[in-house]
């Protein structure tokens, strides 16, 4: 059993949880993830680690309630427990001194990206951050990113705050010498960023989150095609070369369970109301 020591609402349906997980926190590096299961009937869901404090023995994850399990997690409170928590999983992100690193984050994934941005800054990089969301109310971790990055830019799909859409990125890339891009967020966003930086030959790492089951290399659910080869995101990633990823395949594979997920969500919400 793993206790929720703190919970903070970052935006509607997006919460930051701090779990007591001493052993995990001591081993966590930016870019790694955990798999948790709320109860005996629960699904195993992967969440990227957004911070680790070995001194306190805690890890933090940000979770966006999009379906049955993530909504159920969102209802848990400080002092509640989850049954299982496995981690740290995946390879740590490659953190080195590259020069200027552009960290592009979208939606809930800005929180784990911040963990990487912090490490890049500590490694002596000039860090430019971009925080994106669909709309103003869904922007998260603005303050944290502001404090961590040398420069911070904001973008929303509907233009309610900061730049409207990602078009400004074209100019930014032309005007600034960027040595490395790290993108974490929705697949379409990572794809767009990779397409753009490819033209300029800027090394671009994306953090892929395909559907997973075990998270330890046994099931092959998480297979992704990178440079024509099939790799398992849970052991070979999460970080991959964005210029080599088959994003269209990933998008299709993420939708495999959409009908079942809707069903599960409706059932669980009914149960919640009754």
């Amino acid at each position, binding site marked *: 059993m793993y206790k929720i020591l703190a919970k903070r609402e970052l935006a509607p349906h997006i919460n930051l949880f701090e779990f007591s997980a001493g052993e995990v926190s001591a081993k966590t590096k930016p870019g790694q993830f955990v798999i948790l299961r709320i109860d005996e009937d629960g699904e195993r869901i992967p969440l990227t680690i957004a911070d680790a404090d070995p001194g306190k023995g805690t890890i933090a994850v940000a979770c966006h309630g999009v379906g049955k399990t993530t909504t159920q997690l969102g209802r848990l409170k400080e002092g509640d427990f989850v049954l299982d928590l496995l981690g*740290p999983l995946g390879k740590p992100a490659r953190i080195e001194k590259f020069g200027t690193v552009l960290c592009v984050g979208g939606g809930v994934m800005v929180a784990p990206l911040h963990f990487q941005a912090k490490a890049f800054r500590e490694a002596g990089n000039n860090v430019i951050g971009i925080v994106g969301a669909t709309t103003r109310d869904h922007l998260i971790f603005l303050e944290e990113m502001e404090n961590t990055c040398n420069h911070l830019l904001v973008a929303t799909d509907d233009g309610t705050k900061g730049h409207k859409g990602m078009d400004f990125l074209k100019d930014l890339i032309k005007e600034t010498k960027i040595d490395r891009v790290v993108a974490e967020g929705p697949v379409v966003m990572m794809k767009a960023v990779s397409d753009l930086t490819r033209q300029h030959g800027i090394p671009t790492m994306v953090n892929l989150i395909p559907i997973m089951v075990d998270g330890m290399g046994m099931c092959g659910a998480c297979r992704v095609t990178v440079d024509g080869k099939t790799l398992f995101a849970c052991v070979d990633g999460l970080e991959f070369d964005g210029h080599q990823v088959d994003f269209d395949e990933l998008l299709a594979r993420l939708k495999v*369970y959409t009908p079942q*997920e809707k069903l599960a969500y409706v059932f669980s919400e009914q149960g919640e109301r009754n």
Partner: protein
Amino acid sequence: MPKPKIRKEAVPMPKQPPKERADNFREVAIGYSEEQALAEAERCLQCREAPCVKGCPVEVDIPTFIKLIRERRFGEAAMKIKEKNSLPAVCGRVCPQEEQCQAKCTVGRIGEPTSIGRLERFVADWERQHGCEIPQKCPTTGKKVAIVGAGPAGLTVAADLIKLGHEVTIFEALHKPGGVLTYGIPEFRLPKKIVEAEAEYIEKLGVTLKTNALIGRLYTIAELLRQFDAVFIGSGAGPPTFMGIPGENLCGIYSANEYLIRVNLMRSYDFPKAGTPICGGEEVAVVGGGNVAMDSARCALRLGAKDVKIVYRRSREEMPARIEEIENAEEEGIRFEFLTSPKRFIGNERRRVKAMECVRMRLGEPDDSGRRRPVPIEGSNFMVDVDIVIMAVGRTPNPIIKQTTEGLETTKWGGIVTDEDGKTSIEGVYAGGDIVTGESTVISAMGAGRRAARAIHEFLMKKETCARKKRNV
């Protein structure tokens, strides 16, 4: 003395009727009643040479336990088996007895061999229902052993070493112990409550079981060696193999591992009560011919598929699956396409698999394994409609430990290299089971565990003597 007459036929195993069981996940074989067990036990000749024992990889004292059944001393019979095999309820169900103990049975020369597996299952089930004794432990030695993986190999090492007085901790990555017994072999062949009871028994002996602990990431083997006097690696088989043909990553194409983990470990058949979804499919093709393929096909059927076929590139004779399970699958209505191999998969506009192109094969010259090599027949290509494909064409060893353990010798295919006793290239580190031999059987993994436990015990005691000598100087 006139020779007692032995019935040629074994007492048949009562089973759920095929039509009925194809719809549910309850155990197919119901198990002998006391009368049936007694009748079957009567068929054993109590051979002095006991050839059956030599057929068993862990040399269970078969005649003695059968004699105890005849005397209705079921609890003692169970204890007798447990001297050699700590998971009899499992082995009685899943051992390929027809190739092992029963293949050597004397009665087999005049009729059906004694049903050793069914009797083993009977006493183990009897014991579980009547509560089992916790065996006496040796005085504590103060030595600590870490075990990686709670599959049959790891559980055996744990049971053996704790009885010898060592302190044992198992690290298991998944949320439940049992390895393949829990996540791979389906409920209808091996009910999970049996695996749970076996794991509980091991915890009752005093073993600490830490689930959610992936060694290599949470602790490396080197770190374990700092806290423990010895380490055993029983991490089993890992990533599934694919064929490398076009379209394999289309939606609806599963590895058998993923399919079985969803169904067995996560109980997808109980979706949405259990939270993990699965795509049942109507027209399912399973590629492969081993136990894993049979299990996948039979799960698909139970999830409601209309048509399930097994596509295998050799002929029936070469199929590595247990005969009993092939027969069960056939009875349930699974179709077999022998001498057939997929060439590519075709998807629809949403990248979901909708068809598979196959080619017919013929058997050519024998290959390294002695089996005749399948060769494609030119121009025999044909299309099959499918909406789910399950690839059961093999697995490779889990790479995480190899990647994170310096100095650990591994083979070309990634298995851990050990000597007869399971000793690896690192002092104090032992390994056994599928991670060493590649995919094998439950009982051989347990046999490897037993040998390794013996070697670890010797190693620890030698270390103790050395340490004592040093202290005396």
